């Protein structure tokens, strides 16, 4: 299945119909919800990633990591569901949009980075004890990578409508 076929399928899906057949305000409301999801996601991610990069090192990482990962997960869920709806409205129109082709894979990379962070021994250890210098450096690298990926995907996402 090509990307164009996938977009045609998405546009014709139940989600596409729901998005198109429910009044002139629905798209705007879903767009608003998408922004709130992205804001929740990025607002949480930026605090956690900057902490991993060494900011506010007097605040215990475990105290910051718990609320930020939870809110980032909620924000991502909201953004992903509403984003699928926005795309499904007229999915075929976005075939060939370079910003979408940047955004989707970079979100994939960002999620892969999340997986790597959570699987790392340093991340597991931070909940129970202070981290070694090397463990902190490893998490800092992944935190910086995270910021780069999320900033790139949000920037590309914002630009989709301007192509």
């Amino acid at each position, binding site marked *: 299945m090509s990307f164009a076929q996938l977009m045609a399928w998405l546009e014709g899906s139940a989600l596409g119909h729901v998005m198109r057949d429910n009044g002139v305000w629905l*798209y*705007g409301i879903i767009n608003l919800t998408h922004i709130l999801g992205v804001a929740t996601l990025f607002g949480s991610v930026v605090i956690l990633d900057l902490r991993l990069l060494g*900011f506010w090192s007097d605040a215990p990482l475990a105290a910051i990591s718990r609320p930020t990962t939870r809110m980032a997960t909620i924000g991502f869920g909201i953004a992903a569901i509403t984003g699928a709806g926005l795309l499904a409205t007229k999915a075929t129109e976005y075939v060939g949009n370079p910003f979408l082709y940047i955004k989707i894979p970079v979100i994939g990379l960002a999620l892969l980075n999340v997986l790597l962070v959570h699987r790392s021994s340093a991340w597991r250890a931070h909940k129970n004890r202070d981290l070694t210098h090397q463990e902190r450096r490893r998490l800092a690298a992944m935190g910086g990578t995270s910021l780069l990926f999320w900033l790139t995907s*949000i920037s590309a996402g914002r630009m989709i*409508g301007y*192509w």
Partner: protein
Amino acid sequence: MRLNTIWLATAISVASAIPAFAHHGWGGNVDEVTALSGVVTEGVKLAGPHGTMKIMTADHMVWDITLAPPPRTQSAGLKQDTIPVGSVVTVHGQRNRDPNRLEMKTIQVEYGGKQYNVYPEFLDKIK
């Protein structure tokens, strides 16, 4: 230093939004307002970021007609069932800067002796 780098990256992202094209704003369209007459091949759709419609001109070219955002298009009196497919309409607007893209951003749609002004603030641009 690291914070500065982040601010710089953010500033670049924001700055790159300034030369904005296509759907948002009029930057992707020529300044001149022209008229386009044709037969409606796909009726007004009030979904997504902008209302849309397709018309076929006398030279058998199918044009994408970009209307205002759905709530604004509707409040201009243009609803999904206002213009039946097959009707003849005249659209006043600004065509896409890319000559190969048959797309017009619309100020006014004329149909059945009525004028639907989706962007009334730009009416003075119509000759």
